């Protein structure tokens, strides 16, 4: 809302609430904000987005998932998939979309949609529940999606040294580890900057781009 670039956006007819992009915007990119339940993904996206963050839930076929015994329980073949996303117009012709989603939705088409073509991911983590970050980190690695880790600070979070956190999360030496407050715009922006700097450094070293 506070971006000058979004200030000339027109709102939609028929009360859709849509806030349109500047006509000059030609390129869109996306980054994922992932992490376990209640780690602050929605807050993070909401803090940075120039539009009211959009939330969608879809009932989807649990394609390929390790589905429990379904005998007599037809409803179990669907799962509700949720994502939150927001938008940041970065310059006259470039817009960045942030997609927040939990990792347990890995088998859904929506997760495939989100990861495909994404530049990278920011893993939000909580020092009180570090072990819950493993699943989503493993998932990103499976997808070959580069990521940075941001420890979202909660008032009662225990303080650990970076070295302790790196060891606990088994991070690669090059994986950025930052601390952020998902409620704070500057802090959250800095976390994204750390991620994009890392992505840029990977292109310089000639690593394969993610697919």
């Amino acid at each position, binding site marked *: 809302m506070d971006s000058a670039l979004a200030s000339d956006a027109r709102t939609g007819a028929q009360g859709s*609430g*849509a806030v*349109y992009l500047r006509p000059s915007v030609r390129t869109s990119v996306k980054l994922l904000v992932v992490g376990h339940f209640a780690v602050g993904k929605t807050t993070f996206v909401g803090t940075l987005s120039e539009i009211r963050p*959009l939330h969608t839930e879809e009932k989807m076929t649990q*394609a390929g998932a390790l589905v429990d015994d379904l005998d007599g329980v037809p409803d179990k073949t669907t799962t509700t998939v949720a994502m939150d996303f927001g938008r*940041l117009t970065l310059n006259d012709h470039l817009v960045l979309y942030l997609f927040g989603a939990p990792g347990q939705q890995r088998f859904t088409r929506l997760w495939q949609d989100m990861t495909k073509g994404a530049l990278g991911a920011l893993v939000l983590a909580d020092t009180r529940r570090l072990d819950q970050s493993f699943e989503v980190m493993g998932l990103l690695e499976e997808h070959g999606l580069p990521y940075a880790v941001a420890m979202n600070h909660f008032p009662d979070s225990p303080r650990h040294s970076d070295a302790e956190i790196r060891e606990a999360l088994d991070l690669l030496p090059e994986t950025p580890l930052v601390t952020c407050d998902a409620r704070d715009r500057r802090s959250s922006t800095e976390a994204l900057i750390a991620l994009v700097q890392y*992505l840029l450094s990977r292109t310089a070293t000639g690593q394969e781009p993610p697919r």
Partner: protein
Amino acid sequence: MSRRSPGPGAGSADSSDAAGAGPSRAAAPGGRGRGKGLVRPYVVTDGRAHPSRNTFDLVTLVFAPGDRPLTGLSPEKRRLVELCSPGSLSVAEVAVHLALPVSVTKVLLADLVDSGHILTRTPIPAAELPAAQLLQEVLDGLRARL
């Protein structure tokens, strides 16, 4: 609007189809028959589970130039064109504002691109990502917000 009726054969539940398929697979008829899950053709898509083209990403930007008559369009397609007439939105935003699943939105969008009602501003193809120049632009844009 999206009444569902399970039935065999009208589409695949494979998550990599339609939505996730890259340009190289665009000509494939959606891999029918590979999926084993229940099928959910939507009335608004005339029962189709796959778009006629696989060029839509969640962040593909679409807009309606507004030079085509809306006569003959289904109510959902009409709503979509009207939504996209004032300016560009991403596919994900269109889906949310229409309260339709992304997969259904893509089917409608594909038809509307075919009929000329909707134009896309193509996102950078995934195969070319991430260009250092693009990342640098993202970085500069973020830094400017500090």
